[in-house]
């Protein structure tokens, strides 16, 4: 069979108010800040310079939808919401600051920051559950967009899990990958394996 290269450009949404102090945002709505909007425009230009995407899929949260819309404007590729790209469900932690969670759930919080693959978030998702979602998205992309270029606009959590899976690393390495707002990651799928082309690239955000 002819070898097809499927290219997956994974980006994170732009800056939102509420990043500082650190907070478990998860499925809560936090719109893009002014800075986030400028970052999204810069990201759109960066994607248009580097690729000609066939499709853009974004998480169902407005910070990703708006970031994806900026990429859609810059590239002309059609953007759609794909619910499975949603941020991790933080359950009872959602919307709370890290300090607050650490004081209310010291054991599970410690586990989350030291052994995230083992952590059980009260009422929320485990990273393993996020991985199942992410793998479904990968299966979908490789099936429907074989040989094409697809942009996925996601969150810190889903992006890290996706990249770890592509690298063949366990979820215990979750904290060892950084995902800056509006960063660019790229992986290709060829000959039945993933190759990481770039991780957390942010040069396009200089001066934004």
């Amino acid at each position, binding site marked *: *069979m*002819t070898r097809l290269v499927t290219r997956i450009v994974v980006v994170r949404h732009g800056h939102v108010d509420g990043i500082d102090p650190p907070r478990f945002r998860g499925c809560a709505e936090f719109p893009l800040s002014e800075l986030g909007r400028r970052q999204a425009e810069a990201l759109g230009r960066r994607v248009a310079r580097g690729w000609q995407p066939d499709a853009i899929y*974004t998480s*169902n949260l407005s910070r990703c*939808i708006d970031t*994806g*819309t900026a990429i859609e404007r810059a590239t002309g590729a059609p*953007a*759609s*919401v*794909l*619910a*499975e790209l949603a941020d991790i469900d933080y359950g009872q932690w959602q919307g709370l600051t890290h300090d607050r969670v650490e004081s209310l759930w010291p054991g599970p919080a410690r586990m989350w920051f030291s052994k995230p693959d083992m952590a059980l978030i009260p009422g929320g998702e485990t990273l393993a559950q996020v991985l199942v979602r992410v793998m*479904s*998205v990968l299966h*979908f992309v*490789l*099936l*429907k967009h*074989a040989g094409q270029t697809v942009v996925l606009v996601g969150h810190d959590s889903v992006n890290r899990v996706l990249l770890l899976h592509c690298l063949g690393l366990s979820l215990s390495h979750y904290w060892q990958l950084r995902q800056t707002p509006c960063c660019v990651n790229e992986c290709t799928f060829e000959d039945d394996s993933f190759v990481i082309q770039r991780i957390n690239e942010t040069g396009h955000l200089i001066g934004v």
Partner: protein
Amino acid sequence: MPAFTLEILMNPAIQDIHAREILDSRGNPTVEVDVRLVCGVVGRAAVPSGASTGIHEAVELRDAEPRRYDGKGVKNAVAHVNGEIATAVAGKDATDQKGIDALLIALDGTPNKSRMGANAVLGVSLAVARAAAAAAGLPLFSTLSASHAPRMPVPMFNILNGGVHANWQATDFQEFMIAPVGAPTFAEGVRYGAEIYHRLRTILKERGYNTAVGDEGGFAPILKRNAEAVELILEAIEKAGYRPGDDIVLALDPASSGFYEDGLYHLRSEGRKVDAAGLVDLYEGWIERYPIAVLEDGLAEDDWAGWRMMNKRLGKKVELVGDDLFVTNVKRIERGIQEDVANAVLIKPNQIGTLTETRAAVELAYRAGWGAMVSHRSGETVDSFIADMTVGFGTGHLKTGAPARGERVEKYNQLMRIEEAMGRDASYAGRDAFVRG
């Protein structure tokens, strides 16, 4: 921004079906069907139509309304798809081809698809298969499988026409085909065929014959004798630089039901009538003289006794293919196997009406050690479903006209695309295409 979940984007259930009346290559109406799945993919198929049709074929529903297309309209078949069939299959899983086809057969309720029309039923059946392949992100050929491994077929180019395809103005026999068995690949086989086709045109022109092409792209000159057709083709093969018998073998489809009258075969061009044994004498002489590997419809569709005799005399030497005799129908093929009348079957999906039944016919032939040759119809569209089906079912040979006319070459072109896509996995059937010869 449109919003989806993977449950929707991966859902192969049928959302809706829409049929329309389009034209075939002869300017007659035919049925085209679009099947849309919940996941958004659309499978489309258009139904072909035969000129020389066996009386036992599934029924192609025509409107018989004289003011539209001389009665050949297919609005009723289209209405059956858009009404009853669309309602029945909505929500059904397109990957369940057997289930969908069983539903279509039950919905029609007749043994020969005469209520809905085989043209309505087949359009849906094939479009469902296309949609299911698209939903799985797979090329169609890879989703169509039988007990024989997939392989690239030998193209059986029908380059010289007579019989009803030439309005009985030329040879009595309908099709004279060349098969490039010595080519290393399918694409090279196409090149051999096209070069011989062009050489034949030059020869015909030089001899003052008409070089206009018939329905299937072959030439239809008014020749003096049936054997002259074979001799002209052999000359074209040699002048193109190929060796008859090594690089190229011949196949004949006399379509003898067309000249079978009152128990005798009427060879108009030779001014004589012969019985089955007399016609087999003629074939036997030709097989001795010419590199013929395949003889299709050598005798008429209900001349079972004649076929049995022909198989005894010729069945060890050449592939004897039944078309009008079997009409891709397992009951008739079963009888053929029991009565030992042939050693191969012609496969035309529109003779039977569903993909599942077509596959069953191929499987039955394989189980009996018979060959299976896939065929187009004389009224075609650019739909190339049979190209993928031939590879998937591994039948090893197909006939889909001359290397000319868009609706014919589209099948050959699709096969070249498949061969390219398969890369080193592609295996050209070559001489192994035939059970004999």
